């Protein structure tokens, strides 16, 4: 799920049309404020999202362009988003 649809799903969690089987990482996909991982260390925009994530626990390994790029950061930290 990408773009505006993803933003809608992320912002209004019960919005119709959200694919309940979409992995979290894809649900966060797309660019634009509110659509991604807000407050990510490597990104002033808070935008982002991408593909791939375990369904329960563990990291979203590839949040995608525009936001936090999971992995080794410029400040030496290992950063990622995980499902709790």
């Amino acid at each position, binding site marked *: 799920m990408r773009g505006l649809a993803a933003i809608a799903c992320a912002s*209004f969690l019960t919005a119709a049309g959200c694919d309940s089987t979409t992995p979290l990482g894809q649900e966060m996909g797309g660019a634009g404020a509110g659509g991604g991982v807000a407050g990510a260390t490597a990104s002033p925009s808070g935008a982002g999202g991408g593909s791939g994530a375990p369904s329960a626990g563990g990291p979203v390994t590839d949040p995608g362009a525009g936001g936090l790029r999971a992995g080794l950061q410029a400040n030496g930290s290992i950063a990622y988003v995980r499902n709790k």
Partner: protein
Amino acid sequence: MRSVRGRWLALGVAAISLAGSTRSDGATFQREQVEISAPLLPDVLMLYQPFPTTLDGEKALAENGVYTYDQLLNECAATYPAITLTPLSSADIATNYDTVAECAHDAHNAKPYWTPKLIADVDLCGSKLGAGWRLISEDDLATFVDNDYQFIHDTLAGVGDPNTWGPLYFGLTVWLRAHDGTIGVGTLEPGVAAGQRITMRNLDAGTEALQLPIALRCIRRTDLP
């Protein structure tokens, strides 16, 4: 007896709460951002001095004798041309990581040899990295699952030459705070049974620097909407 207005208010609050915590499939919507810092590194020439006898002395040692990765990165960039401050590709970041270790060792006497009592007594993570950062805890290890450990491991795979600085500076054996508040050592490596992640406990009293490759990494976990 609750008023009609009060009941509507309660229903509204419940509806908002439900919308903010539940996805369309009814599953709980909870994520968090995990950051695990690069190791803090002490200047061992300072650490090898007689251990301070007061807490203020320990805090001064932490203030003056402990480097953050950012400090080393910026100071080393002047003399280590392999370091690239910006822009940074993934390859640049990996090279920086390795080069900072070399510079830390050669130019700053900064090695991952820690005095346990200093870790126990001083909030090194908070004071050096800022609000929200803390020492990795036994609780952190308990809440991580195999995917977390695998991701952490994979992120550092290929970073740091295994024949030189890598294992010494960037290993996944880490200092931690145990459930009982004492300082111990554990591992972030994947494939370790839950009951075997803590390898040393109750080290608080130690005032001698341990010359072991145990990284002092900090953690910050931020809930996401």
